[in-house]
């Protein structure tokens, strides 16, 4: 019983901390204007953050050991190429993911 209560308390604390990080900018600039420097970079943040999220997805890749991140980079290249060519989000995403699953499950780059 105390275990359950403790777990519930922990969950509540983590939930509050997470919500706080998400609500912070809205609390700060909900009623007053954000500083001008912030509003000028506001539209530049999404492209930067999205590309950083791509890079973040590669954070656990072992660049110095076989297969040297080649399945990841190869698939990203295919996804990007497909998307620049056809600009069909579903096609790019699913073709890329299918390709990657084949590459890692069948260890296609094992010869490297």
């Amino acid at each position, binding site marked *: 019983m105390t275990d359950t209560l403790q*777990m*519930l*308390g*922990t*969950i*509540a*604390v*983590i*939930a509050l*901390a*997470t*919500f706080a*990080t*998400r*609500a*912070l*900018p*809205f609390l700060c*600039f909900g009623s007053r204007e*954000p500083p001008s*420097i*912030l509003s*000028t*970079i*506001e*539209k*530049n*943040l*999404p*492209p*930067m*953050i*999205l*590309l*950083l*999220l*791509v*890079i*973040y*997805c*590669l*954070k*656990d890749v072992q660049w110095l050991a076989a297969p040297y991140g080649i399945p*990841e980079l190869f*698939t*990203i290249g295919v*996804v*990007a190429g497909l*998307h620049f060519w056809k*600009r069909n*989000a579903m096609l*790019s*995403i*699913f073709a*890329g*993911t299918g390709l*990657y*699953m084949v590459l*890692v*499950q069948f260890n296609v780059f094992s010869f490297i």
Partner: protein
Amino acid sequence: MTEKEVKRHEIREGNMNLFMSALKTTVPVFLGYIPLGMAFGFLLDGAGYHWIFAFLMSLLIYAGSGQFLAVALLAAGAGLTEFVIATLLLNLRHSFYGLSLLEKFSGVGKVKPYLIFALTDETYALLTTTEVPAGGSKARFYFYIAALDHLYWITGSVLGAVLGSVLDLNLEGMAFVLTALFVVLTIEQYFNSSVRFPFIAALGAGATSLILFSPDNMLLISIILGTLVLMGREKLVQGNMSVNKGIRQAHAQTRAQAHAAAKPVEDGSREES
């Protein structure tokens, strides 16, 4: 049907279309959140917790990497302070997401608190890149996207906690769907806007943080680094612009004096754009 009924019917149909549109937009997140959520549920189950806790955590916390971290801390028997500090640090990146959504989220009405609560990496990526279908309500469309993503995450984590040990699916590599989603959305950002510098800033900040910092910290650090670079460049450009403007004004004045019957000045307009 009376006029009122027709109208109500039309609204319902419009909402249905909006929902289908959101459903289609979130399919990649569905395919990513199910295996990731299952991995989380499986881990929590392995740590000896009932599946109801997987459900509660995904319902109330709703942060992918944050919940993985929580499992690790639970297993290590961490104290509440450690939970708070680790969670704040890990999720501080979300504050930067909100910064670029202040305008988009103004005027969404009563769903705003939920949209803020449900602001995961993937939902942020979709909301900043996807256009609201013509004629549809922004608040409703955003709410559908956020709630669907939330539902996928909860479903995945409960499935993982309940079935994780029974099922033996080979889902290896499936979570790559989220990487592919981010790649596609980054390219969409590239198409939608003419600014190129953010991509250069991201490459620089990302590579630097990847090399210098641990994988767990790199996202927050690279976002802070990239934001500072963006702000620095903006300051520089603004400085240059005011200098240029001064020069151009002086130029125009002398020219106007030289050619009293002046033709419209056309050069220099390129620099301005």
